[in-house]
């Protein structure tokens, strides 16, 4: 019952007028960001992070988490009304959301998406509450060797499960890690990789600069080419009878929604997987287990509910390893982690001991954010319909300005603004050539931890490399990493063997 006590203390924090206000602002902003085609939770958090200096650190994290949450709800709005996913996480929602809208049931689809998101969010937050403290307890026993092994494990999930080109994934991981070493050597304090003798590089490359560059400027450059023509907005009206009917309909889908929630939560915890694959998997499972699979793709309400529960659950799931282990489960949580480090709240098991007020305040704020998001979502649907008609060039120009000013504000150096533009263009080109961006950002955030834990272990073990394998926990992590790393290789060998057997092809 210690848990309930903690949670009650947490609610005392999160229900304070300031934090309640912040949660509502956060989910509203998140809903708009999520609803805009091309902008998702990562972009929202990257662009908004620099301007969260306006509130105290704990509230800033609550604000960012609320934006993350809101964006997960918002993604469904443009999937349904425009037929374009508002964020990659809402791709699966277009499959049935769009047909429903075309049949004049846009309102019902929006209600289903919002309610399913609420269910997914709530179930996963309960799971989060149950798992957080025990996991942090286990992680307390971790030394530098285990930390290194865990970071390695996080990166190998990208190689084994990420689904992108393996060589390109490895390049992006190494690039992120190499960029994280710019500045002063962690152990000796000597300067290294000071490009062009530019003094700006002495303080290193902030994750924020890379994130704003890649997810702000780069993303908009990328959308400029995909959004040449303005999409058609389907009108949606909402009445109370419809709302009531929608809730009754959703009530019949408990099996689909609980499956989606559990699936989303656990898939979301993996750094390489996250909300998009979770939503697609949930859609697939809902179709498999449905009594009427032929209706899927033609406007089945389950087809909207299943992915929406899963992507919200996944966003909560990805917070779990970030908060308890200090290893983010998604690019967005990597940014949250970077922000927390910047504010002196270092995530990991010690946070649960040193800052219990903050940790439980954040956890309880997920409950309030979830409730606020569903209410704001349903109340503001007419506003979203209007906002989606906003010409894309207006949005782009404002995002560009926010990126430039937001990149300047934290350090107040124009050097960082130049880097943002550079990363934006480079990120755009790399993304166009199918290089994955998530491992790059994760690597830059985790790079210092990885290098420090690696070198600390070797110093304390007098240079014995086998120390990583000899310790049981870190040895297990390394073994799993090797398996993940070998997965794509095995696939390759299998394909190669097959080719040898059938030379006729």
């Amino acid at each position, binding site marked *: 019952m210690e848990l309930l006590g903690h949670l009650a203390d947490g609610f005392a924090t999160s229900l304070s007028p300031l934090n309640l206000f912040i949660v509502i602002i956060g989910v509203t902003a998140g809903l708009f960001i999520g609803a805009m085609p091309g902008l998702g939770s990562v972009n929202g958090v990257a662009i908004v992070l620099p*301007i969260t*200096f*306006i509130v105290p650190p704990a509230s800033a994290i609550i604000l960012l988490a609320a934006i993350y949450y809101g964006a997960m709800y918002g993604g469904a709005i443009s999937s349904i009304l425009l037929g374009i996913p508002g964020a990659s996480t809402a791709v699966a929602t277009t499959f049935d959301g769009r047909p429903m809208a075309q049949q004049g049931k846009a309102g019902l689809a929006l209600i289903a998406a919002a309610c399913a998101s609420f269910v997914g969010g709530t179930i996963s937050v309960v799971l989060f509450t149950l798992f957080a403290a025990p996991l942090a307890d286990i992680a307390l026993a971790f030394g530098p060797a285990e930390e290194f092994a865990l970071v390695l494990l996080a990166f190998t999930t990208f190689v084994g499960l990420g689904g992108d080109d393996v*060589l*390109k994934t*490895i*390049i992006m991981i*190494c*690039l992120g*890690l*190499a960029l994280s*070493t*710019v500045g002063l*050597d962690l*152990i*000796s304090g*000597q300067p*290294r*990789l*000071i*490009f062009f003798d530019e003094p700006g590089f002495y303080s290193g490359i902030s994750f924020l600069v890379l994130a704003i560059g890649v997810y702000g*400027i780069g993303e908009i*450059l990328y959308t*400029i*080419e995909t959004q*040449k023509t303005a999409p058609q907005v389907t009108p949606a009206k909402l009445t109370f009878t419809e709302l009531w009917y929608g809730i009754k309909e959703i009530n019949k889908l408990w099996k689909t929604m609980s499956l989606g929630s559990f699936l989303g939560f656990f898939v979301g915890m993996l750094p390489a997987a996250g909300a998009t694959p979770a939503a697609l998997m949930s859609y697939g499972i809902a179709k498999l287990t449905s009594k009427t699979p032929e209706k899927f793709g033609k406007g089945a309400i389950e087809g909207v509910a299943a992915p929406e529960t899963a992507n919200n659950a996944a966003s909560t799931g990805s917070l779990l390893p970030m908060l308890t282990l200090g290893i983010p489960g998604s690019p967005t949580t990597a940014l949250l982690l970077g922000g927390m480090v910047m504010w002196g709240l270092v995530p990991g098991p010690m946070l649960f001991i040193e800052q219990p007020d903050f940790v439980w305040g954040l956890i309880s704020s997920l409950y309030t954010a979830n409730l606020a998001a569903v209410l704001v979502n349903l109340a503001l649907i007419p506003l979203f319909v209007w906002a989606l008609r906003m*010409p894309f*060039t*207006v949005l*782009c*120009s*404002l995002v*560009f*300005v926010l990126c*430039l*000013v937001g990149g*300047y*504000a934290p350090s*107040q150096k*124009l050097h960082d*603004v*130049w880097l943002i*533009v550079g990363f*934006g*263009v480079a990120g*755009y*080109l*790399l993304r*166009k*050539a199918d*290089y994955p961006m998530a491992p790059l950002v994760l690597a830059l955030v985790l790079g210092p931890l990885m*290098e420090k834990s*690696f*070198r600390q*272990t*070797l*110093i304390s*073990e*007098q*240079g014995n490399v086998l120390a990583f394998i000899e310790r049981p926990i870190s040895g297990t992590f390394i073994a799993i990493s090797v398996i993940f790393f070998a997965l794509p290789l095995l696939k390759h060998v299998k394909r190669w063997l097959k080719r040898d057997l059938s030379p006729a092809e």
Partner: protein
Amino acid sequence: MLTADRVIAGAIMALSVYFMWHATVLPIGWNGETGGPGGGAFPFWLSAIMFVCAGGIILRSLREKPSDTEPFFDSDTLRSVVIVTIALVITVALMPWAGAYIALPLFLFWYLKIFGKHGWVVTLAITLGTPVFLFFFFEVTLKILLPKGFTEPYFIPLYARFF
């Protein structure tokens, strides 16, 4: 697409070599006294892996048949992206000299009126509203001063009024 893939991989190889060259300033090998790798080892060997992987991409592309003729850029998009990038570069270059309050509205005006072909009402509302918002949000509330360049003297009365 195949050519673009090779060009990008080649650029990554060049970047890796540049990183490696920089990393050799600190010891890249085993540091005998303290145990463990030296300060340059991490960036050096990571860049080496990057170099090998990018080399692998080029080698792989040589074996592939150039079957897809889909261009990496179509000329239309390339034009918009290049123009917007140039505009961004000019805006940032203007910031230290003319200040954020001239550079950013100029960018907005160009983007909305000329690039986006919007009407005067939308253009002027955003072009004039944004700097006012930025001033009150960043300078007055957060006490973060944006670069002003030669416009600095004109802000002194505003500072006196709001700080």
